[in-house]
Every structure is written in structure tokens, then in C-alpha cells.
């Protein structure tokens, strides 16, 4: 993704435009080549005279010599940068370069200057100057300098000198990194030269050297532009190393690059804030704008992104090594314990960090390491996954960041994740009655499940809806929506199920085509997006623990993840509105998977489960009953409901007005998930952390009535994003009671929408699954086949 652009941007930068810049500056001074050569030789002869005296040790006049050589060298190198091949021999070095190569000019000057280092004075200043001069030469030269051995020798001498103990200074660091990155840019244009910079071991058994590389490594975690420059240069080298086994092996075997990167992550992680100052009570994940303002986190993220980029471009040896170091040097020793801190604040922070990391990395090899750590690594006795799953059951904030983490995990569309979370519990089919096994594959063609879900909408939620402007149905009826709208409004409330307008928005409608026509047109617009037949990768078809004989044990559960989600769902009335958004979003996300086992478990309302297994339908039924009995006990329920709806709708409008740009976007496209309109939860939580937004929404709702009494009261914390609802009969309530009422009322708004969403998803499955399941319907195909990568 971005990284590649980064790389190409880098490669295109550098000498190219530097040359033009230099040229435009120098044009006035351009003299004819012969004069230049004469001047050049003249400078050199004066330098040679000094060099040939016996070293710098003689104190008198020594300083003068030094400055004379310095001036002459400056002049010579400036001329040399302007030198270019003569037209008659375009591939040969230009006259000045040829002379310089012949005289070994660069190395001789440098060697003489370096002798002065031993005297100890002005080393730093001189080194900075040398670096600058060489950088100018490399970046502005009009001919491929690095092809010539003497030039490389001189550069290596200089780089070698930079390793000697000189007090580090910003100027020196800047000069060094700049020179190195210029060299890398040059090499990127002629990758074959890279191996010439690899110096053989000085003695047998010692390591070879690649100064170009090892001088850059110490800057890899630096902040600011210097660090960025070093990382850019390293990345160029990494990309080059991919094509050079020698260099690849050098980096893996003889440099500390990978351990430095991985332990660097650990060090940077340890300086992250232990506690996140939460911006609002709906906050549940770190957005870009959240972490950009936290320098420690921004630094960590740039290092992590760098690791991701390195893995993307580097030699396989380097890639593998880095991934291993990240697992053993960062995830296990640092991330593991961090996730298991005892204070809730720290748990929240580390979970949010982990979620951010998972959302930010993209390289499959790196993702694999993270996921492997999550799924298989045992901290104490539990896997990280178990611990995180259990936290969904905890109270508000920790629950929310955990839900958000799982949302991100599911967005990865990773079979291993889904297997571990859900499928492995469903594969044996112990959750269904024996006779029902074949029905696992059934596709609900006629909307039976949708009907069932919609029938669970509590009666009390159906009336008095200040419905949002109903999306005009694309009706197949000739008369269009006008005829029906009047009469249906009163029964239906907020119109169509959540999903149907999704099929409408993208397509301009001349009149009222049937939705079928629309669907097809949309398919065509989507082009390649039409779900491709999923290759069934793991041959589960043949493997599922064929256990017809085995009796399921009494407490067969669909796994802890489902259990905790269902428990939380059953508790919907007590959850905060934000928990419910995330929770229903997650269940909907699972329901979208075109995986027969999962689909039948969640959406097939005709399925008969083992008595011990709770179905989604049962859970929803129990929520329905609770809402109904709550509504019956709350005399002003209709008013409260209408108010809550108004608020959420106003808030949703604000979000839509700002465009759907924000929010973590799933990396991979999943056509089914994608084609689904965002759930109400996603819709409303977009930008939801912004308190101003909440305030705006509240104003929107309350402007007409001006009933400010409703605002101050209730269980919301100050600055909370949900407005408290007006008190009952003006009486002051206990805060706990107000919160209970508030949560229940918001739940009564969300619940019907969730049911509509589930109904819509089950209908979408009916339409898309024929494309996904490339199976014949006849025969006793084991129920789990078609278990491919989980997305179309």
C-alpha cells in the first residue's frame, strides 16, 4: 500500500532534480571544458605539493596547509561535479573525472586529511565538511561516479572514518545520513553496484562489512526527519537486497539490523503512555488523529510501519529473521505481559494499542506473526485470545476496546482467526441435532429467516417512529412508491430494512426499474467484484470429525467467543448504547461470512440445535421480551423512545454530512461485507469521539423544543455523548435508575435496527451463495465443505 509509493517516491527523488537545480545555479560559471581541466589540474598541483611534504605533523604552517588543501579540494570537487562525458565518447568518464581517477585524487586528499585526526583538533568540523563535500559530489555529479573503484574506495574510507570515536553531533549525524541516503538513491538506479560496497572480511572468520548499511542502522529509531531519512535509505537498501543473495545473507547473518528493529519496538513500546486519556464515553479505538498527537506513539507507529515496509521489500532471509525477532523479541516478552497487566487502565491501553497495530500492518508475514502470537501463545496458562475473549464480558470501556479489537481481527478475513474463534466449535456439528446436519447447507431462498428476525421487533418499538426520510424503494410495482407509501407508513415505521437502500444509492434510476434489474446492473458496475467462487482451501470437506455416532456431551458450546457475545447480547438492555453498537456490529460482521456453518448457526432460524446450545434466535427472543416488559413498566416509554431516535438520527446525519471518509477501513475488500451498508453502529460511531459532534446533535434535537431540562439529568457522565433522557414526570431519579432507563431506551432503538440488519444479511446470503458454493445440491456432501477462505 502506502509503502510502495514511499519507495518509488524515494527512488525518483535525488540526483535527478538536484542536477537541474545545480545546473541552473552553475550555468553562469560554465566555462569551456579545456579551461576547466586546466584550472582543475592547477588546483591539484598545488594540493600535491602540500601532500608530498612529510605529513601534517610539522606544527608551523600546518594549519595553513590544512586550510589550503581544504579550499583547493572544495574548488576541485565543485568542478568535478560539473564534469561530464565528452560527446565523442558518451560512455567514458569526463576529462576531469578521468584525471581524478588516474591520480586517485579523492583517496589521497582524504587520507592526508584523516592523518590530522590523530592530532585531535577540529576533527568533528572537518568530518562534517568532508561528508558535505562528498554528498554534494555524489548527488550533483552528472555522471555515474559510483561505477569507478577509486571513488568507491574514497567513500568507504570516509564511511569507515565515521565509525571512529568522534563525539557525535547533530551536524555530523545529519551529514552522514544525508550522504548515505544519497548513495542509496544512486544505488537504487544501478543495483548491480551494491555488491561492490560489500567488503570482504578483513581476516578469515571475521564478518564482511557493508558500511553503507551498518552506518545507517543506529539511526533507525530516531525521531524526526533524520530518522525518516535513515529509514527511507534503509528501505531502499532492503529493496536492493531482495535481488542480491550476498547482501541478503549479510544483513541476516552479519548485521544487527533485525534485532535492532525488533528490540527497538520493545523499547519504544515501553515508553508509551500506560493509560489513555479517553476523549468521550464512546471512545473505543485509537484513530490516526488520536495518536498523531502522542509523540511516543507516533514514533512507535513509524517504526512499526517501517518493519512492515522492510518485510514487504526485503530479501526472504531478512524477512523471516525480522518476523521471528518481532515475535520473540517484542510480542512475547513485551506485548504479552502488557496485555496481562492487572490494572484495568493498562489493559484498556494495551488492548487499544494492539488493535491499532493490527489495523496498521499489512504484510501477510507480519500479520501472521501477530496472529500466531494472539491465537497460540500462552501467557501463563491461557492463550492471549482466551484472555481477550473473556474481556468482552467485562464492563464498559474494556469491553468496548476488546470488541473493537475483535472487529479488526474479523476484518482481516483470516481463516485461522475465524477457525479459532468460532468454526472449530462448529465443525464437529455437535451443536445441531443429528437429523439436522444436512440442513447446514440449506440456503434460505424465500426470506423465511428474514421474516423470523423481523417478527422479533417488539410491538412497542413499531409505532410513533419519527422515521428518517424513507429511502424511496425501487419498487417493481408500476405505480412506483407513491401509491404504497401512504398506506404502509403507518404499519411499518421506518420503512425498509436497513440494507435495501444500499442497492439503490450507486445507480442512477431513470424511472423505477425493478430491484432485480438494479441488482444486476450493480453487479455489472462492480465488475470483477462479483463474488468469485471461493476455492475451498482446507479440505475440511473430507475431514470434519465425522461423528455421527458420537454423542455430544451435554454442555456443548459454540465456543467461548460466541458464548460471551451471546451473553452480552442477552444483556443488551443494560449495555451502553456504544457497547451495543459495537456488539451488534460484530455479530452482523460474523453473520456476513458466507460460510455455511456460521451462516446456519447464526441465521438459519429453522435449525434445531441441541437443547444445551443457545441460538441467536433465542437470545434475541429474550431481549425482545425484556424490552417489552420494560416498555410496559415505563409509562412514558413512547416519548423516551422517540427522543432517543431523534437524537441518534440527528447524529447519524451529521456523520453522513461529513462524508464516509473516516474510520478504520478494512484492508481487504470483502465483497459481501463491503456491499453491506455500514451497520447503524458503524454509522453512528463514525467520528463519534468528537464531543462537539455530540453536542451539535443534541442541539439539533433540542432546538425546536428548547426543553433543556432533559439535558442535564441522567446517568451520562459530563460531556457524555448520549444525552440523558428527560426525567419521568419531573421527579428526580436516582442516577443509577436514570442510567438504567437510558440504556434500555437506546437499546429499544438499536434492537429493531439490528433485527432488520440480520434480516437483510440473510436475504443477501440467498442471493450470493449460489455463486459461492460451487457444489452440487444432490448427494450427501458433508456439511462443511465449501469452507474456503472465508470471504468471496
Amino acid at each position: 500500500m502506502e509503502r510502495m509509493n514511499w519507495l518509488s517516491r524515494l527512488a525518483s527523488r535525488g540526483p535527478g532534480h538536484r542536477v537541474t537545480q545545480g545546473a541552473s545555479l552553475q550555468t553562469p560559471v560554465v566555462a569551456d571544458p579545456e579551461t576547466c581541466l586546466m584550472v582543475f589540474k592547477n588546483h591539484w598541483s598545488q594540493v600535491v605539493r602540500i601532500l608530498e611534504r612529510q605529513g601534517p605533523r610539522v606544527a608551523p604552517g600546518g594549519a595553513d596547509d590544512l586550510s589550503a588543501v581544504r579550499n583547493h579540494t572544495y574548488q576541485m570537487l565543485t568542478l568535478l561535479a560539473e564534469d561530464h562525458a565528452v560527446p565523442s565518447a558518451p560512455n567514458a568518464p569526463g576529462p576531469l573525472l578521468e584525471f581524478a581517477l588516474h591520480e586517485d585524487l579523492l583517496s589521497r586528499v582524504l587520507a592526508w586529511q584523516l592523518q590530522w585526526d590523530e592530532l585531535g583538533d577540529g576533527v568533528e568540523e572537518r568530518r562534517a565538511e568532508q561528508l558535505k563535500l562528498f554528498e554534494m559530489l555524489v548527488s550533483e555529479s552528472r555522471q555515474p561516479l559510483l561505477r569507478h573503484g577509486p571513488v568507491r574506495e574514497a567513500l568507504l574510507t570516509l564511511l569507515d572514518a565515521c565509525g571512529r570515536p568522534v563525539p557525535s553531533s547533530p551536524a555530523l549525524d545529519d551529514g552522514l545520513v544525508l550522504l548515505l541516503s544519497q548513495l542509496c538513491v544512486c544505488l537504487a538506479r544501478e543495483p548491480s553496484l551494491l555488491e561492490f560496497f560489500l567488503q570482504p572480511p578483513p581476516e578469515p572468520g571475521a564478518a564482511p562489512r557493508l558500511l553503507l548499511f551498518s552506518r545507517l542502522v543506529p539511526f533507525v529509531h530516531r525521531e524526526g526527519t533524520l530518522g525518516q531519512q535513515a529509514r527511507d535509505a534503509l528501505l531502499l537498501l532492503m529493496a536492493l537486497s531482495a535481488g542480491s543473495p550476498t547482501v541478503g545473507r549479510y544483513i541476516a547473518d552479519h548485521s544487527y539490523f533485525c534485532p535492532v528493529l525488533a528490540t527497538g519496538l520493545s523499547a519504544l513500546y515501553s515508553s508509551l503512555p500506560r493509560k489513555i486519556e479517553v476523549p468521550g464515553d464512546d471512545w473505543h479505538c485509537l484513530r490516526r488523529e488520536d495518536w498523531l498527537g502522542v509523540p511516543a506513539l507516533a514514533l512507535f507507529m513509524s517504526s512499526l510501519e517501517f518493519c512492515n515496509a522492510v518485510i514487504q521489500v526485503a530479501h526472504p532471509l531478512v524477512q523471516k529473521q525480522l518476523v521471528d525477532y518481532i515475535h520473540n523479541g517484542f510480542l512475547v516478552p513485551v506485548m504479552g505481559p502488557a496485555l496481562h497487566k492487572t490494572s484495568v487502565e493498562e489493559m484498556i491501553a494495551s488492548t487499544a494499542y494492539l488493535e491499532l497495530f493490527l489495523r496498521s500492518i499489512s504484510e501477510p508475514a507480519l500479520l501472521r506473526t501477530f496472529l500466531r502470537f494472539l491465537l497460540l501463545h500462552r501467557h501463563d496458562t491461557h492463550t492471549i485470545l482466551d484472555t481477550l475473549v473473556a474481556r468482552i464480558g467485562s464492563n464498559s470501556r474494556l469491553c468496548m476496546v476488546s470488541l473493537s479489537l475483535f472487529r479488526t481481527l474479523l476484518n482481516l478475513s483470516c481463516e485461522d482467526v475465524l477457525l479459532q474463534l468460532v468454526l472449530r466449535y462448529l465443525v464437529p456439528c455437535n451443536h445441531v441435532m443429528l437429523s439436522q446436519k444436512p440442513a447446514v447447507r440449506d440456503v434460505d431462498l424465500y426470506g423465511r429467516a428474514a421474516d423470523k428476525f423481523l417478527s422479533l421487533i417488539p410491538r412497542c418499538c413499531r409505532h410513533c417512529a419519527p422515521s428518517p426520510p424513507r429511502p424511496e424503494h425501487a419498487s417493481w410495482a408500476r405505480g412506483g412508491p407513491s401509491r404504497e407509501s401512504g398506506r404502509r407508513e403507518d404499519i411499518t415505521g421506518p420503512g425498509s430494512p436497513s440494507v435495501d437502500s444500499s442497492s439503490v444509492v450507486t445507480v442512477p434510476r431513470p424511472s423505477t426499474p425493478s430491484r432485480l434489474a438494479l441488482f444486476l446492473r450493480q453487479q455489472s458496475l462492480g465488475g470483477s467484484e462479483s463474488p468469485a467462487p471461493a476455492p475451498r482451501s482446507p479440505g475440511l470437506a473430507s475431514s470434519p470429525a465425522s461423528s455421527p455416532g458420537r454423542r455430544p456431551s451435554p454442555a456443548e458450546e459454540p465456543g467461548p467467543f460466541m458464548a460471551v457475545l451471546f451473553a452480552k447480547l442477552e444483556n443488551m438492555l443494560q449495555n451502553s448504547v456504544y457497547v451495543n453498537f459495537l456488539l451488534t456490529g460484530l455479530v452482523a460482521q460474523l453473520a456476513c461470512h458466507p460460510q455455511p456453518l456460521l451462516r446456519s448457526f447464526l441465521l438459519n432460524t429453522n435449525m434445531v440445535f441441541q437443547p444445551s446450545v443457545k441460538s441467536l434466535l433465542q437470545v434475541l427472543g429474550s431481549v425482545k421480551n425484556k424490552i417489552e416488559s420494560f416498555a410496559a413498566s415505563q409509562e412514558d416509554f413512547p416519548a423516551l423512545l422517540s427522543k432517543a431516535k431523534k437524537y441518534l438520527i440527528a447524529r447519524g446525519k451529521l456523520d453522513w454530512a461529513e462524508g464516509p471518509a473516516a474510520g478504520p477501513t478494512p484492508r481487504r475488500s470483502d465483497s459481501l461485507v463491503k456491499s453491506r451498508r455500514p451497520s447503524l453502529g458503524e454509522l453512528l460511531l463514525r467520528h463519534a469521539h468528537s464531543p462537539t459532534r455530540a453536542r451539535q446533535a443534541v442541539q439539533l434535537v433540542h432546538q425546536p423544543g428548547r426543553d433543556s431540562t432533559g439535558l442535564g439529568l441522567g446517568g451520562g457522565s459530563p460531556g457524555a455523548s448520549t444525552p440523558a433522557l428527560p426525567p419521568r414526570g419531573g421527579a428526580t431519579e436516582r442516577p443509577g435508575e436514570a442510567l438504567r432507563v437510558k440504556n434500555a431506551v437506546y437499546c429499544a432503538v438499536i434492537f429493531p435496527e439490528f433485527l432488520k440488519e440480520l434480516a437483510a444479511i440473510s436475504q443477501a446470503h440467498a442471493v450470493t451463495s449460489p455463486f459461492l458454493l460451487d457444489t452440487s445440491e444432490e448427494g450427501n456432501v458433508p456439511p462443511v465443505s465449501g469452507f474456503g477462505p472465508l470471504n468471496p
Partner: protein
Amino acid sequence: MNPFWSMSASSGRKVGPGDDDGCGQDTICIRDRGGPVTFTRPPSGFSSPGFPLEKQRSDGEEKTATGDGKASPPRTAPKKQLPSIPKNALPISKPTSPAPAAPPTNGTHAAYGPFYLEYSLLAEFTLLVKQKLPGVYVQPSYHSALVWFGVIFIRHGLYQDGVFKFTVYIPDNYPDGDCPRLVFDIPVFHPLVDPSSGELDVKRAFAKWRRNHNHIWQVLMYARRVFYKIDTASPLHPEAAVLYEKDVHLFKSKVVDSVKLCTARLFEQPKIEDPYAISFSPWNPSIHDEAREKMLTQKKKPEEQHNKSVHVAGLSWVKPGSVQPFSKEEKTGTT
């Protein structure tokens, strides 16, 4: 250009190579408001674009839906009126079969009846597309999901070279009502086709329409088959039946006449005015050559698209056959 057709062009499906014997080049021009778009059925061996619902099927496989045709009296009443368009009155779908825990269909969610119907038809249509019936092309109406336009190409046998346009009418209480009706634009000379209305006797094959067991693609498969395997029992067109039994030669010549008639009238305006109705026009190089070229070059695309979509599909490190995460050996990243 109607994107609908560009879609169908990109989803090239196989024409059974053997099916093309003896047929010339069929040119179909589908007229849309934006101007005609053409596709050509190429000579054998090419992937056929357009909306080919084609699939190579041996005749043996086609027996499935035959046989239980009950004698139905020949119908003579013309059945040319427009299909009954679903009333806005909610088509309440009452399951005819005793279904366990049939949900109450009153109340809020009954209002969603039309959605259920529409999605059922969407699902039926995708199933139909999956079948790839050889020589059968279908496109739903622009105005109504309950009306599908189609054309069928007969590639060998008595009706060889026949190009028959037809319309499928689906009852608005689908899937709980009668079977869909299929009416040919021009009554083909055939024992099972009503000579005045052009309606095919579908009922004999689907005496009772059973949800979940019967699908619309079966009707189309049946419609194709009647031209290859003539059945004369209780005909809608007794004269044709008698001729077939008694004087095959005369029958054949009548069929040839009928095929010629249909071909002669191929370029007529569609019987039903609808932007998505199928219409033919003579070959016009300025329009059709390009479209044809495009279709022929699309052949390779599906594989590329396939690979691409597989690549973005997701991540998996599960070894085939295993239920252990990360059981696959080392980094083979995406599947």
C-alpha cells in the same frame, strides 16, 4: 452503454462446443435507451458472452423433470395480456407446506413481503445464471421482477437453427402459487405450444410447484428440452401431435416453416415495450464489430479476475484438511 450488458459480457460463460454444430452466426441486438448493444454468438469453442446461461448437459441428465406431465386440456384462450403485476397489496406468503413454526405474517414484518419476493427472485435468477443452460439467454424486465425476457437457440435436431423469443411470467405469490408461465413471442409449431397464445405447457412438468424443490431454471431447462425430445401426450396443439405421430415428414416441413417464420420476424420490435426486452437487429459492423471483438477478447479475463479476487479474498495459514490454525508450512501468505 447499458452496464448490464457490459457485465454479462465480462462474465463469459462457456458455450458447449458441441452445441454449435450447424448454426450460423447469430446476432443479437439488445436495444436499450442508450443505443443498441450487440453480441454475437461466436463459432464453436468460444466463450459466449452476453447473458449465456449455458451449461453442457448430456441429454441423460435432462430427464429429471419429465414424465409426470398430466393431461391438461388444450387451452385455446389467448393469453396475451400483460402479466399480472404484483399489487401493492402485500403478497402474503403463506407457506403451503406445513412448516414448523411458521411465523405470523401479520404485523410489521408482513410489510416486507415484497422484499422477500424480490429477494427470492434475485436468488432464483442467480441460480439460473449458475446453470448455464446451453443456448438459453434470459434477462429480467426493467419494470418488473416478475417478468423475464428470454431467447432460446436450438442447435440441432428437428428445430435446428430456431431462434425463439419468449417471456416468463412469474406469479406474484411466488413461490407459493402456480408454476411460472412461459410464452413464446411467436407460437412455434410444436405439440406442447398453444398455437394461438404461444404458451408452452409448463404445467405438465410442474404439476404442483413446490418451493425449495422447483426452481425457475428448471422451467427454462424444460423449455429447451421440448425442442429436442418431442412429447405428444395430451398436446396443446393436437394437430402438431397427430402429424408428428402420423406423418413426420409433413411435421418436419411445418417445423421448418415455423423456424423460418420466427427467423423472418426476428428483427421485429419486442412484443413488450421494456428497456430490457431482447431485440435483434441486422449485423451492423460499425456497432457490432467492436462489441464482438470485445467479447472475444474477454475470454481470458475471468481467470485473471479470478486470481485477483482470490488474492484479496483473505488470509489463511490453515493446512487443507486441518482445523489447526497455522498448520500450513511456513509463509505462504495469501490464499
